[in-house]
């Protein structure tokens, strides 16, 4: 590919003198291109990293440095005061626990359901497939905000095709209330309606469609059933798609603030607590008592930056660990329309 980006190989020309000149100019062109690309990448890299660097720089700044005009990036005095306040205001450990309780089972269930649905859409022919696929596209377009009030009502008195009614008959109580439990997340993930499940099913379908049909045919001729073919033959071959969707899924469950804010009440996830951090800071500071409003004002930015860092950090660590597989798998996924 090199010649496509760094320069064009000169077309064959008759005279050797012209050829040499052309080669030289092509070389110079290539050099300019590399230079421009490097400059662009450096500049954009700065823009991309800027918020993180900015937050890092402010997070550990001591109070005395806030108004110091000579302090731009590196603080002169370091302090953990803002970090401690942020941890307290975010209720970091409780919120982290709650986030993980929701995230881990939901992501696993979502992976299973989207893989199955993607496989069905890609590899089986049946009459209703077309209309169901149109339904899938529709689920991608409709935002969850349109569904949230009915979903809220339905989870408050949960009766999925009479299942909740059966439960209430046996337990003798009214319809079960699933709000403030992780079950709304689990159920929606398990039935292919988790956060952005539609998009993942679409990605999976694209990927399954690109697999050679001979693979499946061979397995079927050898007497493998559909389920065994799926698990033994197809799944090991779609690893790149699985990595891509896994990373997306973790990221979006982690960053989801909307469904969590609706379905949960007292024990919130990290992202939700981040949206309310600004207000929570005043309450925490009030509880501590030793801080004046002047102190809080000086610390506010630092605390918010710490909050952002704390919420980003686990994802950043995951990204650094999975970065290579992720970028490579994405290039191979070939998500095209």
């Amino acid at each position: 590919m090199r010649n496509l980006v760094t320069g064009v190989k000169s077309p064959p020309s008759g005279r050797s003198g012209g050829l040499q000149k052309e080669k030289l100019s092509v070389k110079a062109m290539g050099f300019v291109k590399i230079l421009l690309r490097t400059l662009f990448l450096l500049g954009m890299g700065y823009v991309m990293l800027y918020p993180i660097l900015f937050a890092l720089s402010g997070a550990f700044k001591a109070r005395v440095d806030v108004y110091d005009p000579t302090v731009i990036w590196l603080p002169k005095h370091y302090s953990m005061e803002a970090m401690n306040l942020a941890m307290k205001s975010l209720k970091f450990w409780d919120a982290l626990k709650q986030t993980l309780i929701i995230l881990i089972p939901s992501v696993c269930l979502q992976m299973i359901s989207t893989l199955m649905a993607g496989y069905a859409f890609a590899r089986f022919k049946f009459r209703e497939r077309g209309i169901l696929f149109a339904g899938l596209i529709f689920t991608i377009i409709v935002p969850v905000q349109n569904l949230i009030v009915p979903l809220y009502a339905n989870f408050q008195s949960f009766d999925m095709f009479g299942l909740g009614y059966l439960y209430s008959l046996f337990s003798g109580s009214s319809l079960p209330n699933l709000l403030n439990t992780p079950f709304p997340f689990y159920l929606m993930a398990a039935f292919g309606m988790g956060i952005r499940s539609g998009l993942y099913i679409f990605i999976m379908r694209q990927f399954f469609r690109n697999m050679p049909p001979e693979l499946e045919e061979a397995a079927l001729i050898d007497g493998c059933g559909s389920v065994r073919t799926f698990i033994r033959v197809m799944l090991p071959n779609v690893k790149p798609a699985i990595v891509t969707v896994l990373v997306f899924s973790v990221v979006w469950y982690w960053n989801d603030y909307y469904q969590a804010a609706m379905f949960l009440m007292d024990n919130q996830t990290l992202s939700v607590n981040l949206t309310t951090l600004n207000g929570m800071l005043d309450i925490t500071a009030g509880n501590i008592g030793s801080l004046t409003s002047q102190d809080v004002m000086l610390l506010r930015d630092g605390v918010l930056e710490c909050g952002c860092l704390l919420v980003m950090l686990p994802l950043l660590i995951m990204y650094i660990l999975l970065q290579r597989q992720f970028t490579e798998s994405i290039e191979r996924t070939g998500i095209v329309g």
Partner: protein
Amino acid sequence: MSRKKSGVGRGMTFAARRAIAGRLFLLPWIIGFVYFFLIPFIQGIVYTLNKLSFTANGVALDFVGFANYKKLISDLDFLKVLANALIEMFPRVIIIVFFSLFVALILRGEYRGRTLARAVFFLPVIISSGVVITVLQENVMGTNLSGKESAYLFQAASFETLLSGIGLSDQMLAAFTDIINRLFDLSWKSGVQILLLLAAVNNIPRSHYEAAVIEGATEWEKFWKITFPTVSPTLLVTVIYTVIDSFTDYSNSVMRMIEEKLGLGYYEYSSTMAFVYFLCVLVIIGVVGGLISRKVFYQSE
């Protein structure tokens, strides 16, 4: 295997058996689609025609006809925010899509440090699904409570001094600063789009370019005659994704308003807003998609 032994699939053609297996694979999704999507979607539309109150036994509906819609039409705040959001969407989508295509073209191919470059460019996909970046921008960089305003305009400010040195007027300066700040914003919103387009660009067969070079095509011609048509299906997907993404984003002012109303307990009114907004966006997606898909070039045809 197990199905064969239990006799379910006996006596059927292979195709019929496959069709049943396919439906079984899709069954969980179909249940979810009906119960967690279709029913709530219809309920949501019904809610817009009613007054809602939550009781211990569930939701109580009180039919009010089109009162919510009438209220919406006279709600100037909402209409203003809605109009602004819809108008802003166009330059936003165009800039994001072209920026993503540009970056994807730059990131493709082999060169030293490409792993690092890609890792950095995919960073927005990882962290900026909204909340973190919005909190950073609005609460920290945006407010000038503690003189941080200069930090928000950090890049622009240094540009500004540079440009005013050249002798540009204040209006031009403001325009420049705006563009630069916007670029910063948008580059953070184009992570997934870069990803989509990079995958598409990498799938273009090299032989196309080689043939073009032999025919004496310039870089400019190669872009418009090969790259652009080949990635056009993905461009369509990218445009639609960007529209959807920008109207569900945490920083979107209409969504904020809808959520605010919901938080205050105006359930039916917030449903109405969400439904109207959705219809607007659906129309936009329909028109834009329709226009673009005419120009889209499919290789297999």
